[in-house]
């Protein structure tokens, strides 16, 4: 069964739990393993946290998530219209963080890359960032 869902919510940390739970619940009818659901839940949390903490920071805005399942493969797109990323290659390196003083681990992209089947980052400075991740939901 092919399916899709879209979410739009205020970019505040209180919405992170809702966002990761909603996308996890969206995948359940495809009967993924618990580990797969948890990988998706964690990766969505990382992408949404990046949008809120780094994309918007103290600015106001919305985070959009488009998720679709086609032939048992989940594609989830997390979009913000925040400040964007200057150098995607540097920012996505393990342990790289622009906010070390806030005790950020610099592991968000590492987790997304490790837990999902694919990760793509598109960003325009001053216009926002889009993270696209895919994950096969069936064991086959």
């Amino acid at each position, binding site marked *: 069964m092919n399916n899709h869902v879209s979410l739009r919510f205020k970019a505040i940390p209180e919405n992170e739990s809702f966002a990761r739970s909603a996308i996890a619940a969206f995948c359940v009818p495809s009967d993924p393993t618990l580990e797969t659901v948890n990988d998706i839940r964690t990766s969505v949390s*990382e992408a949404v946290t990046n949008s*809120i903490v780094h994309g918007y920071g103290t600015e106001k805005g919305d985070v959009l998530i488009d998720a679709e399942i086609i032939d048992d493969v989940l594609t989830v797109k997390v979009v913000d219209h925040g400040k964007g990323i200057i150098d995607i290659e540097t920012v996505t390196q393990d342990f790289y963080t622009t906010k070390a003083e806030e*005790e950020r681990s610099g592991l968000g992209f590492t987790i997304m890359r490790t837990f999902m089947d694919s990760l793509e980052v598109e960003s325009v400075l001053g216009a926002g960032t889009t993270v696209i991740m895919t994950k096969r939901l069936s064991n086959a």
Partner: protein
Amino acid sequence: MKVSAKLNKDNLYVFLEGEIDQSVAGELRIKLDEYLESVKVKNVILNMRLLTFMDSTGVGLIMGRYKKLQQKNIAMFINEPNKQIDKVLKVSGLYSIIPLI
């Protein structure tokens, strides 16, 4: 998110309950520092039996507490993480400095 602590001789057991993400990080950091600064112990054990979710925000927060304790020669350990949290901790390499017991 709830946090409580129990002191047993040289060990401080900190019990984490609920979910750790950006929405609770600030408050949790303050509570943990209160516990960690108020006692003289050799070991701090973070018990995660009732912790249902943690992302990399939690890793940063734990590393921050570890660095503070390290200056006082206090060791930190992790106990009973669920599979989701265990995977995050493994990928982050945290077990090399904060062993799983």
